[in-house]
């Protein structure tokens, strides 16, 4: 048999018998919960903990006893139900003192609002995080727009370096460092968002700031995570797209499902590295452990991330094509980068929070 009880946030919980009278953590809100005991705490009190339905019916009848574990008694915060007939069906408990005063009615439970600085409890709470980081995302989008647009416009010029002396080519190729640094900084910013979620940190926004070393370290982690597995899947996708000719519907399905696997695996490698605190997280077994612990949430994240990545890749490529034609391409490119960064921050925050919950609930 299992012990059923309700957390203060309203989440219905169940624990094994051997966990009675112990403490645990609510998987939804992360708060500590006390698991009630099956034994009757005092003579005259109801035997064992009540089911949620029983608790509703006996809300104004069951007295509080000091032997109940902690203040987190169901009667305090269970959903309010004023069905008088339900109450009438339950025989009243016999008080120890016939002249005892009936204890006051428990206060109405408060609704669980999401407050700033509090770790997100629902998935849509994570949408507030990119809104808080609006200025950061705006700045990154502007920078990446300028860098990527300038890079594609200068690519034909770089091919003229083929006949130049090697030192001349090396100096001109130094320009390529700029887009790498810009991209690396964006990767590091997302890495910070993921790490903040994994550690359960919600009081302030995490970003690399002016710490270029941190930015380079973050981009290095991303690169290593990419090379640890997704690089092979990306090679398969690119080779398939290059040589399949005109894509049929089945071909598009193949590209889509390979994209989901690639993007999802890359995300989980990053999360695994974040949770392990080092590069040992790139081991496929650790990644699989994380995916198994997340359960269905891993599939949700993978599909969401792949869908967003694919849509924004298409938008970005269309915008880059437009950059060659006029100013409207630049506007579209900025919109693509801004939207991509916004949803990337949301997904990384969501993944980080879910990893945080999964780590706390780890047996």
């Amino acid at each position, binding site marked *: 048999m299992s012990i059923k009880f309700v957390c203060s946030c309203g989440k219905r919980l169940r624990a094994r018998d051997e966990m009675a009278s112990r403490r645990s953590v609510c998987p939804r809100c992360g708060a500590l919960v006390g698991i009630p005991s099956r034994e009757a705490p005092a003579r005259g009190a109801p035997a064992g903990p009540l089911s949620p339905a029983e608790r509703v019916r006996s809300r104004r009848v069951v007295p509080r006893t000091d032997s109940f574990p902690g203040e987190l008694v169901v009667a305090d915060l269970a959903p309010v139900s004023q069905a008088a007939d339900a109450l009438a069906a339950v025989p009243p408990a016999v008080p120890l003192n016939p002249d005892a005063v009936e204890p006051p009615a428990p206060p109405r439970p408060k609704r669980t609002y999401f407050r700033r600085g509090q770790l997100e409890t629902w998935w849509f709470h994570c949408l507030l995080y990119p809104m808080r980081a609006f200025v950061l995302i705006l700045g990154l989008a502007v920078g990446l727009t300028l860098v990527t647009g300038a890079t*594609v416009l200068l*690519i*034909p010029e770089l*091919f003229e370096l083929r006949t130049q002396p090697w030192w001349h080519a090396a100096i001109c190729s130094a320009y390529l460092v700029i887009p790498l640094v810009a991209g690396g900084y964006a990767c590091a910013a997302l890495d910070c968002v993921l790490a903040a979620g994994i550690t359960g940190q919600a009081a302030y926004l995490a970003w690399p700031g002016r710490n270029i070393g941190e930015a380079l370290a973050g981009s290095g982690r991303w690169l290593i995570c990419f090379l640890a597995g997704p690089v092979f899947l990306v090679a398969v996708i690119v080779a398939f797209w290059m040589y*399949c*000719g*005109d894509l049929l519907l*089945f071909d598009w399905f*193949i590209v889509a499902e390979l994209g989901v*696997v690639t993007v999802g695996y890359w995300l989980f490698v990053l999360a695994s590295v974040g949770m392990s605190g080092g590069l040992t997280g790139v081991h496929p077994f650790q990644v699989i452990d994380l995916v198994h612990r997340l359960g269905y949430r891993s599939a949700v994240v993978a599909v969401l991330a792949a869908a967003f990545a694919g849509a924004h890749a298409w938008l970005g490529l269309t915008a880059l094509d437009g950059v060659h034609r006029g100013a409207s391409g630049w506007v579209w490119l900025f919109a693509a980068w801004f939207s991509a960064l916004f949803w990337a921050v949301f997904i990384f925050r969501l993944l980080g929070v879910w990893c945080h919950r999964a780590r706390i609930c780890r047996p």
Partner: protein
Amino acid sequence: MKRPYLVWYVLALVLALAPAGFRVLLWPGLKQHAADAAMVRAGETLFTHVWKEKDALSPSGDGLGPVYNATSCVACHRQPAIGGSGGLQHNVTTFVVKPQKPGDKTREGVVHAFATRFQETLAQVDAMLPPVARPTLAQLVAGLPRADGHCLAPSFPRNVHVSQRNTPALYGARLIDELPERVIIGRERLEQIKFGLQPAQGENAPVGRVNRLANGKVGRFGWKAQSASLSDFVQAACANELGLGNPGQAQPRPLSAPNYQPPGLDLTQEQCDQLTAFCASLPAPVERLGSPGFGRKMAEEGKSLFAAVGCADCHTPDLGPIQGIYSDLLLHRMGQTLEGGGSYGAPPPPVPDVSPGEGPLPDEWRTPPLWGVADSPPYLHDGRAQTLEEAIRLHAGQAKRAADMFGKLTTGEKNELIAFLQTLRAP
């Protein structure tokens, strides 16, 4: 730590990759030409046959003509041997007349050099043009330093463009015909990625595009990549160059007799297949670097320069399974100076089958394969360049950057590059 669920995740990864592997197995491979010696011999007979009006080999049709450019295939395709290229005297004159009034359609076609009846002249293209029957290249292209006629083009109306086509060599046609379409499409995508998604319609980078025909196929034969297969190319040439109507392409109607109806087809499908089989039997050109020595070293240096200068961006050495073709078979914009509209577009059913507005632009040309280039002068689409160096200098549009880089080479480096091109010989 035991992970009993590990097997399921590995299985899931295998299932994720399985559709891609299954699809790869279904990709169309090389289109194999069945080598039939009898068909090839019969095709060679037809290729060298000198056609005449009411020819015995075409009992159902009118034989040669009534309008034609040559009396046999080998009359043009003979340099340096049967199946090769042709000289300036065998150039085909094409025209494009753009509409001047709303509702008018673009007219394009060929001004045939000869006729059994209904001789064609430029005046039949447009009343403002002189009645010249066989215009020379110098009469159509300004600035050519030759004495075979002063240029007439400046006096042409603005909506009329007349250009010429030089006879291409047919060597290696089987390899091109067998190439899967996905290889050509893959090359197009590679060039788009390589040059940062530069548009193919621009002239800033050598980004080519596939010529999509109206039936959805990819063009690969002809100066404008207007034919999707060797069979289509052969049938179109028979009809338009020799006036031999066949099941794939009807013979053109004379400009002065648009209502002319031939009594029947001049060639049967079997005869067309025999001609195609012979063309497919022609060997591919070879790269002859020569014996080790100074000449070979020059050629090898020139080969490196060929890639460094940017020639290999379009004249890519290998295309899929074809080694040494030096072409990407894509359309590239070559600049206003190398414009040339017109095609085998006269009614009946046109080849190329191009929807209006979607065909190659006047300055778009398929990258000609450079294999055998040393034995196929003159060069460019109309043969205006007598030497390889002159041909490189005349490259414009998307190729201008490479032409400028060639111009900046030293004399010795230029000689090395030309020496390399001279190693690309006909079989």
